[in-house]
């Protein structure tokens, strides 16, 4: 019975969590941020910012996915950073 209550509570909290994050859109301030700004802000959280010339555009697509998963970047951040790196190459 105790286990069942834990499972139901866990499922309820997980459901509530999904509803909350799905309903929270980025504010205008965040949505309007330039891709260059996002590149500078997010890479620096763990390591120096890489120059776009470090990899070619195809490699950046793979590396940006690796970084999105490692740092749990949002979809918008990851897409904009990739856009910046490719457009600067």
């Amino acid at each position, binding site marked *: 019975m105790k286990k069942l209550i834990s499972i139901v509570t866990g499922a309820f909290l997980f459901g509530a*969590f*999904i509803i909350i*994050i*799905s309903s*929270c*859109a*980025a*504010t205008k*301030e*965040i949505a309007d941020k330039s891709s260059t700004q996002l590149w500078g*802000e*997010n890479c*620096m*959280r*763990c*390591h*120096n*910012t*890489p*120059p776009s010339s*470090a*990899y070619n555009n*195809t*490699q950046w*697509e*793979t*590396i940006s*996915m*690796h970084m999105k*998963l*490692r*740092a*749990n*970047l*949002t*979809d*918008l*951040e990851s897409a904009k950073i990739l856009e910046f790196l490719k457009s600067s190459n």
Partner: protein
Amino acid sequence: MKIQKKLMTMLSTALILCGSNAFSQDNLTQTERNEITTSQRQSPGNTNFVLAGYTYSGFEKEGDGQGSFGPAGFSPIFLWKKSDKLFFEGEMEMEIEDGEVNFGLEYSTLHYVLNKYFTVSAGKFLSPFGTYAERLHPKWIDKFAEKPLGFSEEGAMVGPMGEFGVSLRGGSQLGNAKINYVAYLSNGPSLITDDPAMAGQLMYDNLADNNNNKAIGGRLGFLPFSNSSLEIGVSGQTAKVGDKGSEYEHTGVNLFSGDISFIHKVGFMDLNIKGQYNQVNVDAATYKDEEGNNLNFDNNSKAYFLQLALRPAFIRNKFIKNIELAGRYSAMNLPEKSLWAGNQSQIGLGLNYWLNWNSVLKIDYMIDQVKGEEKEGAINVQIAFGF
């Protein structure tokens, strides 16, 4: 006969078409033909592969001991992006230390992107218990040559560096703030009971589970500022750790971790602060010492570090802007009455020179203090390249 005639007509048409195509290609200049061949050769295809990773080598000298070159290591990372939804990442670890070559599989993880908020992953992955294992441990990222106390596989570990299981992860905006999240099921740690000298300690390399219970864990990170400069994270894990069928089968463990990351521009300097606190509480259990006597103790361990780095990144002088000063305090407290007890602290002072964005030369002076013993100094020099 009619069929043969039709076939002949079709063949002739095909030859004429091929011929006209060949003729049209013959009209191309040599440069145009080279461009076509080059673009065909450079076409990336649907599956994108990148070989990344890092390598390092160094010199270390502890106390009055003789200095020695090493350790040296090479960690290739294989990244495959099969599609926008399917991704694989794997890291091999090869290191020469104390005359031995060690091979390891740091991680081997398959990812499937469910939607923009969630990615499900399976395999061996870096533990999202704090951020040190997942984000800061690669030698070209770590500001020091050695890992903090309690975070290294070479000594007693307080908290896992890797997991074997499945996870769900992602990140999302919360207005101007941001959150990121990971939840996972894994084999979890196992409890050492058969070696009296280590009895009660946890082993985190539990590649084959020792019982039916699976560890449940997760991390929640919160970035309150819109510029992502501050991240505060909490992590936890709970599991049963005893061998199936043994008297320790129902012995459990609760692990807790808090982490912080702060980056800020201070005048012409980049300020970078990182910290993590790990605590491991194992349920009460009775172990046997080397003479077969009962051994009971409060099996609680903790390890933590706080690190600060300053780099004058915004000045013009090319040499000075690549210099970084780093300081780190780390400590580890292990259960007092256990046979593997120990209280240890370490102060590290580092001078780093960045050769480029992912290559660094580190010169560290470490002061180790084991409770009840004299302080001992050590010098570590390390060069690390990311690639």
